[in-house]
């Protein structure tokens, strides 16, 4: 197996509160990893730590991505290197046109990779298919970024960004929360489209429903700032039945 990201003894705090308490996790390249765990366990904090969020202060341990430590990297560099987080709560940015934002992000990436930047027309052509697949109306990209978007629309817009940026490690923090059945199907389809055996997914969820669509290879249980169990997909049924309290730390 080849490891794309390795998290070792990670300790991190937000404000005065220590949230990650010696967390270990290894992500196998090309696989779908699901993280489940009770509210407040530190799932979102883990994802924020991986992308370099300013809230989080790393106290100890390390995160290596493709063999290099990333804990001292800027958020933008981590993104350019191929790490993507779909936020649990995407922010609204009034006055920033969504299409302009998407194109700026894509062109930043293309420039980083030494590719030609796309002009507005080329970009719109690229967008068309994605929008159709995600069931997004085209006015969604002419509006301000996430402003006044419904919960489901925000999540679709996160997936749209993932499709455009084609990242290598994709963290989805509760991408399924608040989605209706059609939206869940559209979002899952978007995710499955990105599954090519090379990209790696870290799917944080409370529900098995999305896992039926995107078929995880591994289930990790995160509790009180640590990964306490890693198993195959069969663990989901067990968790649904007995809850997190029944899980013993390995």
């Amino acid at each position, binding site marked *: 197996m080849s490891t794309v990201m390795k998290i070792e003894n990670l300790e991190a705090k937000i404000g005065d509160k220590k949230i990650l308490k010696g967390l270990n996790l290894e992500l196998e390249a090309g696989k779908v990893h699901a993280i489940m765990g009770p509210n407040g366990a530190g799932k979102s904090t883990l994802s924020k730590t991986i992308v370099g969020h*300013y809230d989080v202060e790393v106290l100890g341990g390390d995160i290596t991505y493709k063999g290099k430590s990333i804990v001292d990297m800027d958020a*933008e560099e981590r993104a350019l290197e191929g790490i993507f987080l779909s936020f649990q709560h995407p922010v609204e*940015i009034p006055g920033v046109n969504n299409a302009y934002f998407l194109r700026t992000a894509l062109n930043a990436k293309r420039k980083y990779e030494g590719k030609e930047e796309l002009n507005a027309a080329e970009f719109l052509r690229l967008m068309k298919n994605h929008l159709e697949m995600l069931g997004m109306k085209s006015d969604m990209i002419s509006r301000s970024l996430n402003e006044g978007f419904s919960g489901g629309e925000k999540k679709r817009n996160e997936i749209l960004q993932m499709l455009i940026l084609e990242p290598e490690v994709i963290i989805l923090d509760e991408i399924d929360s608040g989605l209706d059945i059609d939206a869940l199907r559209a979002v899952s389809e978007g995710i499955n489209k990105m599954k090519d055996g090379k990209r790696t997914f870290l799917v944080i969820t409370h529900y098995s429903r999305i896992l039926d669509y995107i078929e995880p290879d591994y289930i990790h249980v995160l509790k009180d700032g640590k990964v306490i169990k890693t198993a195959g997909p069969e663990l989901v049924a067990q968790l649904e039945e007995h809850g997190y309290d029944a899980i013993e730390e390995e």
Partner: protein
Amino acid sequence: MNLITLKNKSREEVATTLEVESRELLLEKFISLGLPHKMTEEYHYFDVEKLLDAEYKTLNYVPKTIVEGDKIEIVDGVVTTAPKGMRVYYEPCEMIDMNHFDALYYLGHLLSPRTIKIEIDGDTAVEILHKYTQSDTLISYRIVLYNQANRHTAVYENFEADDIKNTLVLYGYDMHVAQDSTLRFIKLQTMQNSGYSMIASHKVNVSKNANAVLKNFDFGGDKALNIFKIELGEYAHVDAGHLLYLNNDSKRGTASQIIHRGEYSTSKQEAKNILDGQARGIFDALIRVEHSAKFSKAEQSAKSILLHKKAYMASKPQLEIYIDELEASHGATTGQLDEKQLFYLQSRGISYVEARKILVIAFANTLIEQVKDSRHQDRIKAAFEEVFYTENKG
């Protein structure tokens, strides 16, 4: 002339210095208000004394033959071109506000016995371009602007200067927005290190059922204060917007009074201020609703973003209300860029510098997009981006 010599002088002395014996009432108003200084409310955050205390050359303002052109061009206070059919001429100003709060409004009138009168006919748009070519000079002129009842007019005001220095411009409008008409007045200042400071002092009368839309886009350097008093008649409406972007050590802003006189009058005043470097911004704005203005509505907001720890915004929105029930809203915020928004952009691979630009432009755009004419909207957006990008290289 050094204006500071007018300080604490008797009426006779002031009259002699200004050579204005015949204009008794104006002189009295000017003297009773006194030459502005540091403690004068509307000049409080503006180094007015430094501007007044300098030796300036004065000009004669001899009217020239007005040549036909695509815009009204005023060079050093004298009209040189005007569009065909537009009535632009000189005459004594017959409607001076005898209750203005600003002493320099009166000084401007005293120094400009003849004013430039512009009458705008019909549904038209006109550009007024002010040009300054003289260094070390006091350029002082006044404009009277009329539109017609039932008409929709737009004025786009722009500024240019030669390579000058140490000039002080004192100018201003007496505007009369006719009954049932709309006047859109869009002022754009974009010059960095323009070499002149400006104190503009205006009076705007908004007649019954008329609508005045006054938008001020100030991305200038140096010093400028835009002073205005607006009076609203019955069912009159004013929509005043102020976008300020300052950098380096410029000091600019607005001191205003909007006065509701007529019933059912409405006002909306929105200021957005972006300050970088050691700049100082001023927004000292009063909305007063008088006893006579029953059933009025007033809305006022000021939002400021400080991009540098040495930048300072003096923001003072105020409502003064003399009726029992008023629909009003009012608020002021000052802060940095939203770090959640910054992070969101950075997490998509956009650099900090670029993300900051995107957010600042977004903040400004919500005001610029209120300029309905898309050509002018684009022009103002471009002007803002040019100034902002020049100041934020990298």
